[in-house]
């Protein structure tokens, strides 16, 4: 357990021998056609089961289970809270004078919402909630959530999620997103948590507001008329948007994808063993741009690859037990063209250094490109029945 804590951001260091690591690296870095241990294609995700609205006591909830048995449950709760007005807002109100008593126009313009209204906590068994991994994951997902800003000028979501939480100048919603991982993570839990959070937010409903303007808010008791936090488009929600001509105006929560590079290959949704040999690990948050019809990048973070913490293998030429048993020509260090390090083929060395700019750029491009993995994931999530 203490070992896990130390390897903070990299989740756990897997207990693989240097020989296994080397074998895995070689098969994953085969040019063009990497061979993954579970036979997936580089862009293929693990199969999962998903359901939403499982907890009646929350505003929205979802559960996702991966085939390997790891499960996450996300519950979203919203509470009404009083907005603390800053001096400047007060001053500008005073400066505006008493004439515009009917503040139709100014309410939407003046109030933008605040990122701290979205709170996120992640519970991972075996970790305290102030350990590095939960903190890093929750900050990563929160920053893309509050960072996503709508593009459609006329919809409710102009200010993104932040703007949606504004009730009026003096009141707002506070959103608590609690993420629960039900078992110790077998892989880096980011994809699981991000997808579950996405679904939970999609199913989140807020009670319908009955008060108007600057009154103290009161709400319709009827849960059946509650409105979705992320409004549905008027036509059927499950419709796949193949062309941007229909241009449905809806905003969707972002998703964060985990991408690794091994050699020259770019691999999505790595499992625990694959991430252990990754040269670079990136977490890329994307959302759909409804107007332009392509994907927008919201954030990129590097994740510390666990391959830096692995145990090195010993080449035969340096192994005392093998002295004289091998010809010196058997293992000659060659230059790995990707990492720029001298390596003996078949002998594992922990990764050093970082990633080249070209590699990072290529990874982002694979996510964002039209018909790429990002669109595929978002469409798949769109297909989950949200009742």
């Amino acid at each position: 357990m203490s070992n896990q804590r130390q390897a903070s951001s990299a989740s756990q260091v897997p207990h693989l021998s240097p020989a296994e690591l080397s074998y895995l690296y070689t098969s994953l870095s085969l040019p063009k056609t990497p061979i993954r241990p579970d036979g997936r294609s580089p862009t293929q995700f693990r199969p999962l089961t998903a359901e939403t609205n499982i907890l009646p006591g929350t505003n929205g909830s979802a559960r996702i289970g991966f085939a390997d048995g790891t499960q996450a449950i996300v519950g979203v709760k919203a509470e009404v809270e009083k907005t603390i007005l800053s001096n400047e807002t007060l001053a500008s109100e005073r400066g505006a004078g008493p004439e515009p008593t009917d503040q139709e126009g100014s309410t939407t313009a003046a109030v933008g919402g605040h990122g701290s209204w979205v709170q996120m906590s992640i519970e991972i068994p075996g970790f305290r909630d102030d350990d590095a991994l939960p903190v890093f994951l929750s900050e990563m997902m929160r920053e893309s959530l509050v960072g996503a800003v709508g593009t459609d000028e006329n919809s409710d979501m102009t200010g993104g999620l932040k703007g949606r939480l504004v009730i009026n100048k003096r009141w707002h919603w506070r959103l608590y997103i609690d993420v629960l991982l039900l078992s110790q993570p077998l892989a880096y839990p980011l994809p699981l948590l991000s997808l579950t959070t996405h679904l939970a937010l999609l199913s989140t409903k807020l009670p319908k507001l009955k008060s108007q303007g600057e009154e103290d808010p009161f709400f319709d008791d009827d849960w059946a008329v509650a409105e979705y936090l992320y409004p549905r488009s008027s036509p059927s929600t499950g419709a796949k948007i193949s062309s941007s001509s229909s241009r449905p105006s809806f905003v969707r929560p972002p998703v964060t994808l985990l991408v690794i590079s091994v050699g020259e290959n770019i691999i999505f949704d790595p499992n625990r063993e694959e991430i252990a040999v990754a040269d670079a690990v990136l977490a890329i948050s994307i959302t759909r741009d409804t107007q332009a019809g392509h994907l927008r990048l919201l954030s990129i973070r590097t994740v510390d690859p666990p391959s830096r913490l692995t145990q090195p293998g010993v080449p035969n030429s340096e192994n005392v037990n093998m002295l004289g048993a091998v010809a010196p020509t058997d293992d000659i260090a060659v230059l790995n063209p990707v990492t720029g390090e001298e390596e003996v083929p078949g002998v594992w060395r922990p990764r050093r250094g970082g990633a080249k700019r070209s590699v990072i750029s290529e990874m982002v491009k694979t996510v964002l490109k039209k018909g790429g993995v990002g669109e595929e994931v978002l469409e798949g999530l769109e297909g989950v029945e949200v009742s």
Partner: protein
Amino acid sequence: MMADRRRVNGPPSGTRPAVFTADLQLGASATDRAQRQRQPSELRKIFLKTGLIPTASGSSYLEFEPSASLAAARANPKSLIPPSSALKLACTVHGPKPLPRSAAFSPNIVLTTHVKYAPFAARQRKGHIRDSGERDLGVHLETALRGAIIAERWPKSGLDITVTILEAEDDRWWGSAPDSHDASWGMMNVLAGCITAASAAIADAHIDCLDLIAGGVAALVADESGNSAAGTTKLMLDTDPAEHRSILSACVVGYMPARDEITELWLKGDSSKASLEEGDDRSGHDALIDGAVDAARGAHTVLAEAVRESLLRIVGQS
């Protein structure tokens, strides 16, 4: 919660200074937004010195040059509130030292990073317990450094890196309403400073690295010059968030020039709308990363000089 009755505590949430209407009209000039005086690709000067803390095996102190507006405000004060702040931080390195007996075997050096704002570092007081932002910075710093340190040279050892931030960069201009842009852009500058300072301190502690790793920040900001069409964006290096009305997207990298590799990348904000200058067909994020790398190259020259100075000092002592 037990109240401390031995002393008179202030109200827990703080108070707001009274604002008089007279100030509101007059105050327009005193509360002018700081303006960027530098060229888009011009960096702030960095002061970096190593070996200031004798009890640590390595240490460094880093300071950014205050912006021109701050100097002007000090020379000719119109308001008691300084218009912007400049980064000041100290970094100490303890180790390599043996791991405690209870710890599991590690073939590599075990790195622990600790980033803490001093309570007075930001305009809003920080508590003594690290909040989630500070922990997050710690993880970022760890990721950046772990790629640079040659970890297998010290099996079974630990290395503690502690960064104390004495003055933090603002997240926005203090006068603008908190909702104008509330993403913590200042934290990115702080992280870049942390990376550069920690790299100097690690070199001061004589720990083998692949290269000196430097941090750099670049941002896409809305163009406020007024002579161009509205909605255009500009790529700026080493942005001071207080000087810009709206930052669309920012990026910080930890960069090793000798290997041309990035060990830490943190990009946030929406860069898809950004229209760069004519003839620049890079996508927004690529331009940001390249910009941040350029900024890091600039910081690297300072870093190399500081490390050389400290070496000369040690040679001089012996």
